[in-house]
């Protein structure tokens, strides 16, 4: 009898579903509505990615649109593509997504073909018919490699340099790696150790760098390519009471800046998470509102920030920053938004002028 009731309940529920399905109206079909932008990141719970998300939300607030943020807990292209497809099916008006995997390309092009505009950020999918906002990845690697080389004695340096890649195969990281190695090879006496897989997870990342330094105690430098590296390298240097090995890497998270401040790490390149989060949302909203088609590849440089404990170099002629101000900005969304106001009013507003051929990304 109870089973019978359960079956009846299930049938009733199915009937309700069928009725509601019939009355379904896609949000995109409703005129004069508030736009909804889907924002897909390749990993949730990463401090650098969170800075991008925060900027995307600031853009949504400024532009008076809704934003739905999603992404897998662990970086995996198929799960991310599924999230983007789910957003498209839910009726969002545009999608901004990082593209860490080639297997996402066909799926994203299918979304674009269905009429939903897409903008890529942070990770570029070659072949996706959409503009890309990000750093010049190979060039930023060259800059980092050159700065490390300068610190260890220039082209006459002799010794080993450890290189770690937290995600082998991730195209942007492979490009950075290429740039770093290109610069370091200018010193014939430098031996490269690695590139080793130093993992994304903060604890595993620390353990990997600790092991690498233990195996190469005389290393001249440790160079990471991902957000957790500078903080980990700093902690490893501190724990080993090592003041001679140069620590270098990417991103301006609170932990990385702290490592630069206390002298346990030395160089970190930022890739303007504010622009990488804000600009894709701006492009989508602006293009939808003005009816501009963005269904072809293109590149908008998000710029590179070069930071040491004594100097901060920002792109786009932004006002000069002290290290202390940069640290304060990393902890405050309001201060970040205020600092980037000239970029929002200029570089971001004029995004169409700044859209370059995609080949410039890896130049």
């Amino acid at each position, binding site marked *: *009898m*109870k*089973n019978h009731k*359960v*079956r009846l*309940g*299930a049938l009733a*529920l*199915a009937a*309700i*579903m*069928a009725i*509601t*399905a019939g*009355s*379904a*109206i*896609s*949000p995109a079909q409703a005129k004069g509505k508030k736009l909804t932008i*889907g924002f897909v*990141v390749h990993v*949730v*719970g990463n401090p650098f990615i969170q800075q991008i*998300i925060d900027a995307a939300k600031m853009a949504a607030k400024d532009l008076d649109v*809704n934003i*739905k*943020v*999603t*992404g*897998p807990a*662990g*970086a*995996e*292209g*198929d*799960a991310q*593509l*599924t*999230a983007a*497809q*789910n*957003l498209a*099916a*839910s*009726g969002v008006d545009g999608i901004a997504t990082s593209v*860490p*995997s*080639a*297997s*996402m*390309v*066909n*799926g994203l092009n*299918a979304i674009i073909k269905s009429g939903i505009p897409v903008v890529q950020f942070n990770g570029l999918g070659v072949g996706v018919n959409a503009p890309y906002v990000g750093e010049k990845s190979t060039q930023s690697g060259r800059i980092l490699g050159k700065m490390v080389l300068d610190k260890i004695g220039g082209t006459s340096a002799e010794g080993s340099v450890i290189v770690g890649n937290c*995600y*082998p*195969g*991730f*195209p942007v990281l*492979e490009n950075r790696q290429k740039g770093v190695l290109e610069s370091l090879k200018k010193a014939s006496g430098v031996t490269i150790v690695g590139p080793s897989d130093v993992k994304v997870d903060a604890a595993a990342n620390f353990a990997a760098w600790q092991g690498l330094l233990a195996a190469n105690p005389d290393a001249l430098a440790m160079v990471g390519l991902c957000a957790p590296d500078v903080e980990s390298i700093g902690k490893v240097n501190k724990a080993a009471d090592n003041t001679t090995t140069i620590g270098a890497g990417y991103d301006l998270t609170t932990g990385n800046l702290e490592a630069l401040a206390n002298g346990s790490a030395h160089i970190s390149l930022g890739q303007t998470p504010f622009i990488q989060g804000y600009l894709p949302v701006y492009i989508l909203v602006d293009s939808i509102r003005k009816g501009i088609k963005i269904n072809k590849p293109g590149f908008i440089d998000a710029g590179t920030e070069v930071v040491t404990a004594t100097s901060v170099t920002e792109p786009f002629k932004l006002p000069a920053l002290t290290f202390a101000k940069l640290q304060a900005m990393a902890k405050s969304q309001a201060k970040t938004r205020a600092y980037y106001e000239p970029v929002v009013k200029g570089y971001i507003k004029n995004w169409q002028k700044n859209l370059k051929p995609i080949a410039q990304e890896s130049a």
Partner: protein
Amino acid sequence: MIATPFGAKGRTRFKLPEETSVLIALIVLIGIVGALRPTFLKPVNLLNLAASYSIAALIAGCIVFLLSMGEIDLSFGWILNLSAVLAGLSMIAGIPVWISIVIGIAAGALMGALNGVLTVFMRLPLIIVTLGTASVFQGISLISNKSGSVVPTDPKITQHIFFRALGGVIDTPVPIILIFVLLAFVVLHLTLHKTRFGYRILAIGSNPEAARLAGIPTKKIKIQVCALMGAVSGVGGVLFLGFRGAVDPSTGGQLLLPVVAAAIIGGTPLSGGAGTIWGSLIGAMIVGVIGVGVVFIGIDAVWGTLVTGLVILFAIGVDQIVRVRKKRGS
């Protein structure tokens, strides 16, 4: 899901299939998401979303064989990856597409068989062996693909019927991948529940010592089941290659949790001796609906993981309540 007759006080009653409870949990979840976001219930959406989760579902269907035997494999995601990489590289090297597909699946079967042989001869649980082989397969994949994506771009390959059919270029009312996976589920169900091989698996899972004393070649069956798991993961790999048109170094790495969760939510116990193939399909759909629902309802990414966990607990709870009621009722 075949209704089984049984006698009670001289009256023929029909016992609902054991998957009923988890099916109700699925319907409730779909109902909730559909009520909140009616667009979700559009048939085209449901079919496309089902297609997206179909490869994970296929592997969940096969892991039921291992769970029924009281074993668990941690390496299938990397078997899928390496099989797809080998198939893709074979295609790029000029080997005909169908032969490359066979190479990928055969490589998967070999990797699975290796897991089985190591388990039997080292007398270790499969979970421990596959802790090691997972890294071995991932490592070989990274060496093979030079830590980059494998993307067949030659039109001779991309215009092949395999890619056109799976990639959605050929328009069909139901995605081809979904039809294939449903047929595979029928085969898996019949294999586990209607063949001597299947009965032996369940007997080993129920009591390995008794199975051995009864003359069941337990070692051989273990190796065969591991090879089957590898072959199905290989099938998953080549399906992925056809469906997405590329395979990445990370492909398959995150499959472990959703696949095992699908089988367990579906009603297959970790203790062995029992298993439901259809339950795993429904379990995979529950995992899929949760993933889709979180996006449709617009739950922020930061909250998404918590909500996913809570909804899985809810689904298991509904399943358990209905099971207990059914037990009392019978």
